[in-house]
C-alpha cells in the first residue's frame, strides 16, 4: 500500500502528537509517542497550516501566497513532508 495525499484530502495532526518548544535545547520539536522530531522552519510553516479543517489544496494555496512561491513546488514539498508524517502515524488524511 502506498500513501496518497490529494488536494481534496484534509490532513489532521493526530491526538498524542504536538509541537513543543524545547527551552533547554532551544528548538521546536514535534512530540509523538516514543519520538521527538526536530521541526525546522519549513516543517513548522507546513504544520502551522494543518488545522484539521482545511484541505491539502487550500493549505498549499495559502503557503504559496504567504511565501510568494509557485504552488506546484510548494505542493510537492508539503506532500513529501506530510506523507512522511503519515507513514509514521503522526498525521492522517481524512
Amino acid at each position: 500500500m502506498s500513501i496518497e495525499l490529494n488536494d481534496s484530502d484534509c490532513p489532521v495532526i493526530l491526538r498524542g502528537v504536538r509541537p513543543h518548544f524545547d527551552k533547554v535545547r532551544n528548538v521546536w520539536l514535534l512530540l509523538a509517542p516514543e519520538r521527538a522530531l526536530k521541526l525546522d522552519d519549513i516543517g513548522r510553516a507546513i504544520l502551522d497550516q494543518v488545522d484539521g479543517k482545511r484541505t491539502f489544496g487550500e493549505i498549499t494555496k495559502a503557503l504559496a501566497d504567504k511565501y510568494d512561491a509557485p504552488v506546484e513546488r510548494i505542493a510537492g514539498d508539503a506532500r513529501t513532508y506530510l506523507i512522511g508524517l503519515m507513514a509514521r502515524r503522526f498525521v492522517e488524511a481524512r
Partner: protein
Amino acid sequence: MTAPRANPPMAMLAELTHRCPLSCPYCSNPIELERKNRELSLDEWKDIFTQAAEMGVLHVHFSGGEPASRRDLEDMVAHARDVGLYTNLITSGIGLNKRRLEALDECGLDHVQLSLQGVDAEMADWVGGYKGGYDRKMQVAEWIGEIGFPLTLNAVMHKKNFDRLDETIAIALDMGARRLEVATVQFHGWAAKNRAALMPTREQAKQARLTVNAARERLEGVLVIDYVPADHHSDYPKPCMGGWASTGINIAPDGAVLPCHAAHSIKGLSFDKATERPLKEIWYDSDAFNAFRGFDWMQEPCRSCELKAKDFGGCRCQAMAIAGDPAATDPVCIKSPLHAELVAAAEADAEADAELVYRVMPT
C-alpha cells in the same frame, strides 16, 4: 579518567512501583523486588518530574511493575503534564477501569502503551500467570479506543509465541493501535531465569523478520511496527540505550536513579537517590553516570574499533552478566572472545525447553 560532558536526557522511565497483579516470567524487574513501603511518595515523584522537565527531559514513561497499582497515578500524570512533559502510560491494563481512564484523560495523558501476554485467553493468562487477565485487557483496550488515547501495543516475543506473530498483528489492528512493538524478550531480571523456556530459535527469528517486513509493507500508513530482534542473532551489538547515560534516565520505585533499568546488576556502581541529591547533579556529575560515558573506559577490542562511536561497545549489563566485567566488550559482538560461547548457550536454550518460572513478590 574524564568523561565528556553529557547532553541533557531526553526521556525518563519512572518505575512507580514493582507491584503488579501479573507475574510474567520475562519481567525485566530485578529479582529483588521493592516492597510497597519503600516506594516514593506522590510529592517526591512530583518533585522529580519538575526537575526532569527543567533539565530537558521530554517524555516521561510511567512504568513499573504495574503503574496503575499506584492509586495516585492520576495526580502524577497531571503534574507531569503541568510541567510540560509528554506522558506515556506503560500498562498491562489490569487495575484500570473506565472511570480511571477517563480521569487520566482529564489529567492530559498523552499516550497508552498496552502490553500483550498472548493472543488468546488461554495463552495470555498462562504467560501472565493471571486468570481473567486477557478478557480484562480486551475490555480496557475498548475503553482506550472509546476515549481516543493513541495506543501502542507491546508484544514481548519468545519461543512460545513467535509462531503466532500474525495473530498478534491482527490484534493490534483490531484494537486500533497506531504502533506495534514486536520485542524479542531480553534476558535481564526475571527473564534470566527463563532462558530455556523462552529463548527463540534461529528459525523463528528469521520467520519473524519476514512476517514483520511483509506486514510493514501491507500496513504502511495504518500501523507502524517496531521490531526488536534477539541480540545473539546478529554479529554486532545494539547501541544499548544509545550509549551509557546519554539519553535516558530511570528512577526505581525507591528513588534510585539509574542509567538503564538493568543497571543495578552492575557490581561496584553505587546509585544515588533522587530524594538525596539533585537529579541534575546525578546526571552530570555522579560516578555511576560517568562510569561508561565517552570511550576512555573501553578495553580492546572496542578501544581501537572504528564502530565504537556507533554501538558504544554494546550493553554494559550484558558484559557484566556474561563476561563478569561491565567494561568488557558486549559478548554479542563477534569480536568478543566470549561470542562463540554466548551463541552456543543461546542455541542450546533455544533447543531446550522448561517450565515457566513466574515472577514473585517478596513475602
